[in-house]
């Protein structure tokens, strides 16, 4: 029996390859994701290990509640003195390592738009881990050494001046060398500017203060015991770790950051495998039907049902193993591709060799094989139900099963259940992992339900789509339509695979369009000032000195800084974003709608008071007068009274709003996230904007001033970039579904060989045959496209309902483009099958059975 299964496989190489590919692509993304993240993690592990190798104990501010821009409350000189006095401490040194710097390139623009630029002090030889590649280390103030990656990228020559900006206005330092850490020229695209401690403190606005204190133990002192002793004098808000613990903690931070990415990538792999499952199911269903005679013959020759089952599952197993193995290998290439993709986005991730963990192999193989086996189980069971007597009858049909009668009710139940789960995930929990899982499972069930329902939808949709084709192409159009509804189940499954990809593309585009519109509306209705100053990178903080300088420009009436921090509120899970505003001026540059507490709530906001958004209030049952206990990075808690409930469609300030002085005192946040600027009446806005632009370019190139239009367009660009990434990843599942169309067509053509021979014999040209196949593919693809469009629209309506104040907008041109693209995809999928059908030899086709 095994021979039967294998010979069956070899006889159908194209199908084998196409089916295996359906699994392989999903598995590719799984293994690619793992290899990619594992490789990066390992490189960073090494970098951190090496850089902390000589440090026995290190003190850092607790960064759990550091600002969103990684700002922390610096350590002070008094602490350094206390540390030096701890028994067992040989040396202790305060260092600066601030991630909010900017190095300017030859064009005067920041060298990095995404990854951070670190301003670091040169550690003493006892702790130093830098390797000088070219030039030398800085010796005096005014000298800087940069990482080799940046020096090479920018083509900086040694000896020239490099402009750097952090908290202080732009400063020029002489470039004296380039450096690597642990041999890595690139640290995820991050830039390192290393200078004297004095320069570093001055540039980062931390004169007399440090980002970390490195400690060297005396000969023979136990690091663990030393950590305990240092902890005793360090006080709250300071973390004390051994060097290796610190390296691990930094590695863990990187892993945490990457895990968001890898979870997202794996989700897309899951989508692609889900689509692949449809293809495998369909392919097996068709071939089992085509081979019914063969199974019957085997049964008459004495094969048991179990043997028939085993032979089909054996085929599935082979395909699963081959596909998964291919996917695993392709994953290596994908990992490289991902790295390349990220480096074009400016994130140059380090990698030292390719890391292929056993876990990667196991997960890829097991998932791939399981998906294949599960997908071919139903067809395999069907094969066992072919009665032996079928071998003797002409034109055997597969036995009709009870399950096919139950299909429609089952489909309805699944769809309903899916939508219910989806709604539950969306409305009951919010943003938690469990809720997201519910949403995912609900969507999958809904897709499955609609897929099962779709055999009923195929004939009407094919009719609607086919009618114009028939009018345009006559007989070939007619035959294409008829052929597509010949086996509605087959067409439905093929189309459903494409439907999933299309639905998600539509969903993403609708969601993005809504987000853009929501932001645009909020800016239009909220912004009363003329300019928004923000970090060039689009996120991250920048020095408050920039705003202060803008304020001095004649013609500027108001400069109102908005700052950002994080806190943990008792009774609220996780961290909450915390915004700081200048109450006196805020409402004059931005109109925040106050839902409760009165319009004056914003202007009157004082230390000890907090404004919360309506969302936050609804979710946590907060009312006017409620008291919130918020944790600070210093390890204490403060209590705030809710004095206003606001609406914040743009997400400009976030769920909690306090006055800036509170944020400075309790959270140490002194830099701005956004600075809103209003002009004096009568000021020439064009000229004033130009002066402000020039001012920022001269002294604070880290910041940029945007008009409302520019700000909206910057936000749109960011959303579009993300959307592009999502499209690219969804393209994978669309490609899988195209293979499904190819596969189904090839199998159907085999079935209809004799018909094609007859058509050719009575005068059908090759071109007509090709067109007929192509149109059939187009109809199938358009059915998928239409179902996907409807489902995508439905899904986005449902999901956006769960988001307060979301403006639902339909990007009609995009949606039409998606539909057209599905048709074009059908044409592409038909290339091979059409060529095959047209290339058939008329005589042998006629003799085909």
């Amino acid at each position, binding site marked *: 029996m095994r021979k039967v299964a294998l010979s069956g496989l070899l006889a159908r190489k194209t199908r084998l390859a196409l089916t295996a590919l359906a699994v392989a692509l999903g598995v590719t993304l799984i293994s690619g994701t793992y290899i990619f993240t594992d490789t990066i993690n390992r490189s960073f592990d090494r970098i951190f290990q090496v850089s902390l190798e000589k440090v026995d104990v290190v003190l850092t501010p607790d960064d759990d509640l550091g600002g969103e821009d990684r700002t922390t409350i610096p350590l002070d000189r008094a602490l350094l003195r206390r540390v030096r006095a701890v028994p067992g401490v040989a040396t202790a040194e305060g260092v600066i390592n601030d991630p909010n710097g900017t190095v300017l390139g030859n064009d005067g623009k920041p060298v990095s738009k995404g990854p951070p630029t670190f301003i670091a002090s040169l550690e003493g030889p006892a702790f130093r881990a830098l390797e000088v590649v070219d030039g030398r280390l800085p010796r005096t103030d005014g000298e800087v050494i940069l990482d080799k990656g940046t020096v090479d990228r920018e083509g900086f020559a040694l000896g020239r001046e490099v402009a750097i900006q952090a908290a202080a206005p732009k400063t020029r330092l002489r470039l004296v060398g380039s450096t690597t850490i642990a041999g890595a020229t690139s640290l995820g695209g991050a830039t390192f500017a290393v200078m004297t401690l004095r320069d570093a403190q001055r540039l980062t606005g931390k004169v007399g203060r440090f980002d970390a204190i490195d400690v060297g133990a005396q000969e023979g002192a136990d690091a663990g015991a030393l950590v305990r002793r240092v902890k005793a004098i360090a006080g709250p808000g300071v973390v004390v770790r051994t060097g290796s613990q610190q390296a691990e903690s930094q590695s863990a931070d990187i892993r945490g950051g990457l895990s968001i990415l890898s979870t997202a990538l794996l989700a897309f792999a899951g989508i692609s495998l889900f689509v692949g499952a449809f293809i495998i199911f369909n392919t097996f269903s068709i071939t089992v039907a085509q081979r019914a005679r063969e199974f019957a013959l085997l049964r008459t020759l004495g094969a048991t049902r179990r043997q028939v089952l085993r032979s089909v599952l054996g085929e599935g197993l082979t395909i699963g193993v081959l596909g998964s193995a291919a996917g695993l290998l392709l994953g290596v290439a994908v990992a490289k591709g991902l790295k390349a993709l990220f480096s074009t986005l400016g994130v140059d991730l380090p990698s030292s060799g390719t890391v292929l963990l056993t876990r990667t192999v196991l997960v890829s193989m097991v998932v791939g094989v399981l998906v294949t086996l599960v997908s071919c189980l139903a067809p395999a069971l069907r094969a066992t139900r072919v009665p032996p007597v079928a071998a003797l009858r002409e034109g055997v049909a597969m036995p009709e099963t009870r399950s096919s009668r139950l299909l429609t009710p089952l489909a309805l139940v699944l769809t309903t259940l899916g939508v219910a789960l989806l709604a539950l995930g969306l409305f009951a929990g919010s943003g938690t992992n469990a809720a997201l899982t519910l949403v995912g499972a609900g969507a999958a069930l809904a897709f499955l339900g609609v897929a099962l329902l779709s055999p009923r939808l195929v004939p009407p949709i094919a009719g609607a789509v086919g009618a114009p084709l028939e009018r345009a192409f006559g007989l070939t159009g007619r035959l294409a339509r008829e052929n597509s509804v*010949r086996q509605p189940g087959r067409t439905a499954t093929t189309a459903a695979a494409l439907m999933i990809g299309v639905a998600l593309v539509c969903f993403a585009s609708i969601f993005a369009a809504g987000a853009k519109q929501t932001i645009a509306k909020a800016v239009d209705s909220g912004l009363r000032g003329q300019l928004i100053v923000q970090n060039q990178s689009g996120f991250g903080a920048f020095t408050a000195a920039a705003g202060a300088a803008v304020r001095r420009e004649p013609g500027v009436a108001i400069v109102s800084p908005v700052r950002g921090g994080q806190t943990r509120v008792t009774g609220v899970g996780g961290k909450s974003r915390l915004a700081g505003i200048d109450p006196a001026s805020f409402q004059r540059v931005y109109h925040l709608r106050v839902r409760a507490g009165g319009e004056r709530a914003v202007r009157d906001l004082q230390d000890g008071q907090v404004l919360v958004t309506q969302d936050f209030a609804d979710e946590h049952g907060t009312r006017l007068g409620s008291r919130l206990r918020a944790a600070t990075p210093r390890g204490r808690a403060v209590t705030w009274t809710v004095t206003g409930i606001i609406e914040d469609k743009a997400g400009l300030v976030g769920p909690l709003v306090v006055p800036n002085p509170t944020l400075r005192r309790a959270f140490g946040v002194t830099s701005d996230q956004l600075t809103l600027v209003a002009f004096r009446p009568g000021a020439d806005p064009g000229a004033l904007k130009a002066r402000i632009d020039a001012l920022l370019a001269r002294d604070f190139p880290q910041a940029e001033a945007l008009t409302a239009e520019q700000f909206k367009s910057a936000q749109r660009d960011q959303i579009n970039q993300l959307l592009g990434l999502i499209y690219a990843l969804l393209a994978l599942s669309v490609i899988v579904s195209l293979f499904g169309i190819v596969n189904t067509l090839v199998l159907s053509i085999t079935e209809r060989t004799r018909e094609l021979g*007859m058509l050719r*014999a009575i*005068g059908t040209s090759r071109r007509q045959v090709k067109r007929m196949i192509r149109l059939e593919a187009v109809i199938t693809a358009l059915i998928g496209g239409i179902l996907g469009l409807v489902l995508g629209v439905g899904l986005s309506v449902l999901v956006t309902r769960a988001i307060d104040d979301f403006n639902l907008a339909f990007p009609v041109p995009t949606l039409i483009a998606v539909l057209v693209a599905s048709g074009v995809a059908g044409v592409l999928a038909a290339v091979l099958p059409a060529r095959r059908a047209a290339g058939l030899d008329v005589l042998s086709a006629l003799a085909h059975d």
Partner: protein
Amino acid sequence: MIVTATSVTRRYGTGEASVDALRGITVGFPAGQFTAIMGPSGSGKSTLMHILAGLDRPSAGSVVVDGTEIAGLDDGALTQLRRDKLGFIFQSFNLLPVLTAEENILLPLSIAGRDPDRAWIDQLIDTVGLRDRLRHRPAELSGGQQQRVAVARALAARPAVVFADEPTGNLDSTTSAEVLRLLRQAADEFGQTIVMVTHDPESAAVADRLIVLRDGLLAEDSAGTAVPATAPAPAGE
């Protein structure tokens, strides 16, 4: 002559394993004649017919259909020839299951993008007696009815010649007789040239002329001319 074959040979395969299906056949089919080709299994009947119909190419020799030498034609030209000049009736009825009986009859015209001559089609439909079955699909028709549809289809485009390969091979004797009567009627009433391969002497008896093949050679021809076996002539191209 509507169709003439001159010194046609056909060899399958090469070397040791090669089979000479036709070993030099010269034959002509005049307009309006209904010819039956008989002969033992493997004698080359189907091969000859396929070559006459441009479905297969001779190894050597020439075939002229309605004035066109077809030996050197490419696929497109052959397709055009089949479309314009030839009709086919196959042993297994070979209808398109997705089309109705009427659509199947009109199929050659639809393929060619020609408007049907309604009067002619109506006459055909009445001749084959399928007026009340026009909206049915092949699966809803009996074997005999399906073959009658096939006959009507072959005649629909008024081809110069209709080729039929064992058209009654899958039918019982009653329905066979019906189909043969139809072919006879086509020859008599419409002057249709017909070339029919058959196994069955009774079927052959309906024809005007009987040709017998044996081992790839023309063994008998009731048209009277004694046909001597000719050696394969060098290809005329």
